[in-house]
């Protein structure tokens, strides 16, 4: 009896739900049908984008180096007619008495870079999202970072657009606003960098006579990068706004490759700068005595080949310290011979100086060093030998390094073994970079590097700054395509190194003549603005 009753309840519930639903649709479709029909026909929904603001970028001194300005978008009959125009231009169109068209104006935030071309490759630019990003759910109108810091920290800088929903009647008039609550836009977060943009502007002024080059300034104790400069550059503001597509195409087609960030992507032969590595290997392996003298006549015989010194008449009596000071090639041919090709290649495997520095930027290149396989492939099984070691030892072999790698190497030398890896985001913690050499050997090398700038015959003496002791090394990278690349790298104050400066000027000549004085001016600027001030 009870069982049957329970089953009746179940059966009844099916009937009940069916009748309830039928009654409800009867109510909605027939009793209130006309009311809904009218509403549905006359009213259309429209989604209006509420743009979010991209996070601002500040430099280490709190200067605002990327923010947003207001620009106007003009729509004619609902389609974009003019993008990023000034208010005055808009007024011209709206005053046109002939125009029977419906115009609408939107004020939008556009990215603005007050320092224009300074560190442009490092800051990077933004653009409309790629298809892949749109697939990942980014609004097709929300700009995302395309290169540099803008790309690397895009997730922090990027905001999230909001929407509001308007109901519009058949004639396009707004019927009501608040049918559906708007989704508020979320602005991106600001970031602060370690870069100094006034330093960048000063470096740019020093590079005025030259076409191509790069400069890195970093603090090895913290890894902060004060300058990451690459020339030629471009005005970032051209890549945001009305003509960005044409401008980007123009920059891409430029044979000088302004988009290339030479400081992290330029691969250069380190030239004589590489003698520091040769020295450290030699000291570590004990193949030289720092007080042993050689006589340099400007030539070095090896088998039946003659290797020339950069100075034709030779340097005379040379020991280790003198060899570094005057950058004597003959001395280092001898040292390289003693090290031998095999040991060089073993050290290259061990040294991390050709690895990426893991700086917080996209697209960093790593350096290049030869291996036995490489030589076999290039010169044939018997086509290479100890002669290659001699070229490697003075940095004219197959070795290639980026400016940031060289700067990091000198940071580790300055601090006698290890220093922090470079970074651009302020307060970011990075790993240590370490050299596999005893610190006493690095100290011996530092003594020699001191003489490069402070000694009376030092190749880098033009970098000298009054009142400041500097250690450094010049480098002149032979370039088969034209003039040599002049390079200079320095650390200072010598007693307690705080800064490393690296400068390369492409196709300009000798490191000591071109790069050293230029670096000297940068060092002086830092000395006055940073060291003296504190």
């Amino acid at each position, binding site marked *: 009896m009870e069982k049957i009753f329970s089953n009746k309840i*179940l059966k009844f519930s099916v009937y009940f739900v069916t009748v309830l*639903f039928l009654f409800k*649709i009867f109510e909605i*479709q027939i009793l209130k*049908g006309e009311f*809904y*029909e009218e*509403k549905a026909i006359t009213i259309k*929904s429209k989604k209006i984008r509420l743009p979010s603001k991209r996070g601002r970028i500040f430099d280490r001194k709190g200067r605002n180096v990327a923010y947003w300005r207001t620009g106007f978008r003009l729509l004619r009959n609902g389609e974009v007619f003019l993008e990023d125009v000034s208010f005055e231009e808009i007024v011209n169109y709206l005053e046109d008495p002939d125009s029977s068209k419906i115009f609408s104006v939107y004020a939008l935030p556009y990215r603005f870079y007050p320092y224009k071309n300074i560190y442009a490759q490092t800051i990077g630019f933004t653009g409309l999202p790629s298809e892949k990003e749109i697939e990942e759910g980014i609004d097709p109108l929300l700009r995302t970072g395309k290169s540099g810091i803008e790309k690397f920290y895009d997730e922090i800088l990027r905001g999230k657009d909001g929407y509001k929903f308007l109901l519009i009647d058949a004639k396009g008039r707004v019927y009501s606003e608040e049918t559906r609550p708007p989704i508020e836009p979320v602005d991106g977060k600001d970031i602060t960098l370690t870069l100094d943009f006034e330093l960048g502007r000063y470096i740019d002024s020093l590079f005025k006579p030259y076409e191509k080059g790069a400069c890195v300034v970093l603090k090895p104790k913290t890894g902060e990068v004060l300058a990451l400069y690459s020339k030629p550059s471009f005005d970032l503001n051209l890549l945001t706004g009305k003509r960005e597509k044409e401008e980007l195409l123009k920059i891409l087609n430029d044979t000088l490759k302004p988009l290339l960030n030479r400081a992290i992507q330029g691969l250069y032969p380190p030239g004589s700068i590489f003698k520091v590595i040769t020295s450290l290997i030699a000291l570590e392996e004990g193949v030289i005595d720092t007080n042993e003298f050689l006589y340099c006549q400007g030539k070095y015989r090896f088998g039946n080949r003659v290797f020339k010194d950069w100075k034709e008449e030779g340097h005379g009596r040379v020991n280790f310290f003198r060899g570094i000071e005057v950058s004597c090639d003959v001395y280092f041919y001898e040292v390289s011979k003693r090290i031998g090709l095999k040991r060089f290649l073993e050290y290259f495997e061990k040294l991390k100086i050709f690895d990426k520095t893991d700086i917080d930027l996209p697209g960093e290149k790593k350096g290049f060093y030869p291996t036995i396989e490489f030589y076999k492939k290039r010169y044939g099984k018997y086509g290479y030998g100890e002669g290659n070691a001699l070229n490697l030892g003075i940095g004219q072999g197959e070795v290639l390094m980026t400016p940031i790698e060289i700067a990091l190497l000198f940071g580790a030398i300055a601090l006698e073994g290890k220093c922090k890896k470079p970074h651009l985001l302020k307060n970011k913690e990075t790993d240590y970079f370490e050299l596999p050499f005893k610190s006493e050997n690095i100290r011996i090398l530092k003594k020699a590097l001191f003489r490069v700038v402070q000694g009376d015959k030092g190749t880098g003496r033009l970098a000298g700054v009054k009142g400041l002791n500097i250690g450094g090394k010049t480098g002149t990278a032979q370039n088969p395509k034209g003039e040599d690349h002049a390079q200079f790298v320095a650390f200072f104050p010598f007693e307690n190194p705080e800064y490393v400066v690296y400068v390369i000027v492409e196709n300009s000549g000798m490191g000591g003549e071109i790069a050293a004085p230029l670096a000297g001016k940068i060092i002086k600027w830092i000395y006055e603005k940073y060291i003296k001030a504190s």
Partner: protein
Amino acid sequence: MRNILKLHNRLFFVFILISILGLLNIFSVSRSFGEVLFIRHVSYVLIGILFYFIFSRVKIPEWKELSYVFFALAIFLLIFVLLKEKGVKRWLHIAGVSFQVSDAVKPLIIYFLSMMWFKNKKAGYRDSFYLFFLHSIPFILVLLEPDLGSAGYFIFLFGVYLLFSRFELKIKLLYVFCFLSLILSFNFILFLIFSAVSLLYVIFNARFVTGDKLFLTLAILMPGLTVPFVFNNVLKEYQRKRIIYFLNPSKDPRGAGWQILQGKLAIGSGGIFGKGFLKGTHKSLAFLPQAHSDFAFSSFAEEFGFIGSSFLILLYFLLLRDLFNLSLNLGGFSSYFVLGVFASIFYSFFTNLGGVLGLLPLTGIPLTFFSYGGTNFVIHSMLIGLSVSFMK
């Protein structure tokens, strides 16, 4: 015999008819969403029909041991999907096939629970607690996904089985009172009326001994008194809000209420005869969210009007009535199994339409056989097939 054959044909006919109407609707919707939806759904329907034919011809063994294996497998899948690190924890991808786990495990769980209810002979308080415990395992696992709507089915199934089973009235009442007390506790007046009437009924009913009376009194008062107390005094404001939106998304100012309004606009603008096939305007203007799944009924009602939508409701009525009658005509295990299939389709029918018509909170449950969706369609085709197989 002739009668049963007729029923068998009618079940299949109604199932196919609903599927065709669903296909028409998805075709219409997909014109603004992209044809790929329609093409995919066609393949789901074909696979579903294939499953129907396969499973309506097999003879399902009725082994208790097998039911434990099935249950263990289902629980394994439900836990496995929860261990996924990313994304929505409702879908599993195995060997190139993606499926919604809470639907996919239904045949296994219905088989197991039917067996448990069928084998349970004693029908005392403890047995009912044990069965409730078994139902709550899949309920909790699906709730954790989190998917309250799909999880609710397992509790609903408990209610259906309990009413159907031969437990005594006092035990059935125990659960019914608990449930009503919980629901009504959110409205003080209703709760007062309910508790007064039911308490009078229990206390002055000579059929119950003192122990039963105590139990039933607790069932009437406990949930209703403790839940509001915990809700108001223990939980913090943001936790309360979260629970309210969870139970009733239409109160969420961020959108569900707007969806329901738009759904009603679409249904209402259909009128008596509808706007005609492919002539609905609401979905193409993107007014209707989920016009192919949760709100499939709304876009259908817009195009086919009161005539079409009441026809669809009557088709579901026929399907449910036939399944229920089939369950009554069968005996033993299969009777419980078919009742489980009935409960699944009934649950989808009243939660989906109830939500769309604004009678219940929106749960996100698709309308089985009508809404877009592969797992739901194929699994329920299989369940209908299995139900038919018991007739032979």
